[in-house]
């Protein structure tokens, strides 16, 4: 009878170690609130939460002890490659960078202009061409955003 082996995703262990570091950081910050451990003060509950996070992140790491990486991944370098392949696909990277640039552009230029450029660029990129229909969809989207947020909801736009 073959024993069922649980698998970890590429990068999962590293991520869980980062969570442990985050827990330690939060615990450290929580201790700094009162400068020590007190039962009823501004820092007591954050310390408690920090301890819970520390304990649960240790439990998560402990749960990895019987888990193995996927069968086709033989060593750490291959796992790293698989991680990059899975999560840094070109369209994910391009979209993320474009989203960050879009946020920066909102501050530098106007909201409508940067939104129009972002939407048009992303529609064309994610739909692999189809320029005319992408531009039409962008125009419709901008019109809908204007009608909805400026005329109906009357919210402040960036």
């Amino acid at each position: 009878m073959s024993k069922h082996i649980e698998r970890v995703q590429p990068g999962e262990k590293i991520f869980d170690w980062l969570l442990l570091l985050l827990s330690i950081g939060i615990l450290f910050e929580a201790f700094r609130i009162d400068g020590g451990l007190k039962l009823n003060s501004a820092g007591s509950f954050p310390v408690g939460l920090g301890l819970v996070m520390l304990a649960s992140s240790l439990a998560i790491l402990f749960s990895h002890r019987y888990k193995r990486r996927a069968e086709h991944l033989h060593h750490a370098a291959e796992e790293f490659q698989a991680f990059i392949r899975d999560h840094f696909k070109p369209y994910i990277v391009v979209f993320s960078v474009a989203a960050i640039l879009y946020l920066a552009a909102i501050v530098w230029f106007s909201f409508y202009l940067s939104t129009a450029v972002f939407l048009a660029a992303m529609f064309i990129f994610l739909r692999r061409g189809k320029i005319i229909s992408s531009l039409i969809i962008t125009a419709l989207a901008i019109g809908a955003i204007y009608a909805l947020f400026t005329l109906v909801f009357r919210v402040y736009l960036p």
Partner: protein
Amino acid sequence: MSDSLSYLLMAWLDPSLLGLTALGVLGGIYIGAIPGLSVTMAVSILISFTFSWDINNALALMVGIYVGGVYGGSRTAILLNIPGAPSAVTTAFDGYPLAQRGEAGKAIGLSTIMSVIGGIMGTVVLAGTAPYLSDLSLQFAPRDYFLIAVLGLLLVSSLSGKSLARGIFAVALGATIGLVGMDPVTAQPRLTMGSMELMGGISYVAVMIGLFGVAEALYQLHNLAKVPVKQNVNKIVPPLNMILKFLPLSMRASLIGVIVGALPGTGGDIASLFAYDHAKRSVKNPSRPFGEGAYEGLVAPETANNAAVGGAYVPMLTLGMPGDAVTAVIIGALVIHGLNPGPMLMIETPYIFWFTVGNLALANIFLLIFGLTGIKIFSKIVEVPKSILIPLIVVLCVVGAYSINSNMMDVYWMLGFGILGYWLKVFGFQMGPIILGVILGPMLDESYRQAMSSVGDQGGQFLLSLFTNPLSLILSSVTILVLLSNTPLKGWVLARFKRQ
């Protein structure tokens, strides 16, 4: 009494409230149905657009979206085997096989009727129990609130995600985010890392939009290549004898839905799982084997997930504790509008309660109308490709995060939490527990400190008080049981019982 009745009927008689509820239900059906969009995402974004509105208008739209969205997920589950919402996962088990047999229309019709029955049942239970529970909750001591919040967070940790440890981590992370800023009692900065920017705390609307909007948009980029499947649907109104045949099962499933929905931190997804399991155990001769197109497998989860909506409102309106992620977001909306969700809501602003009850009932009527019509347009709209949807979600998130305080910092927080949420999602963490933690964290802190003060800051006395008062004893026992049931001890005890 007459006041309560007028509040109850307010949404039915005011044309603008009527229109907003209808719009909400219609929008909710599509939001719930389109994979990649979620009700929680929509309601989170809506808070920032509606915070300047009259509270009744804002609530009417949110209630409509909530009711429509819980149902909407079932349509794509039946037609495409893609549950539009987590509460529709079990619907796909028998709904999709029915569509493959050419009975998609009948399945959609039946799921609509059963959702409405569940929704009405949930509303009736809300109206019948919440006032009494609210009176009872006025007797609760701070330690009882502390225990209820701990229990709720523990339940959501154990019922969601890959493991209890991950659930607890997510809840604690959320609670930590909720505590950032000045301490409300001593004005000491907490977890601010010396930054002045963080003294005012992190806007939970930005956190919600980041976790449910941006994170989801980034995650959906992985499914960009999936091509929507085209479906044909025929007549969808089911015959009366079919409805009557499944009525007893739908009543039982409604009860399960309301009870599970009322447990803090659970919701429609867990309610539908419980109801499906109940149907499998209790129906001896299903129309077909479960998993192969049994109508019973469609009726039970669809009734339960909509009944859970009314159930989720019970702890929210009486204790100020969210029943699920959507009610957690709605609590945020009530607070922004200057209301105080919890036992005082029924005393200070009873009209909100009766308005919500009337509005939920009205939303279910609209659900019946929209659920049984417009199916042809619907099947076209859900085919919107993700390459169009994802950039639009990002723009909506930016507008939503900015408009709440007109502050770009909130937009940057939203993006930061979106990226964190993406990685958490990739590695099996759920977003719901984080949001519940954000909402319940400050409340837990407050009730813990009040409870400690009431026993003179004596740790031993505090622990003793958790077991010496009848209500606290019950809550402590349930909390310990829930905790132990998620440890290896449960298996050991069960094995001992089996041996004996």
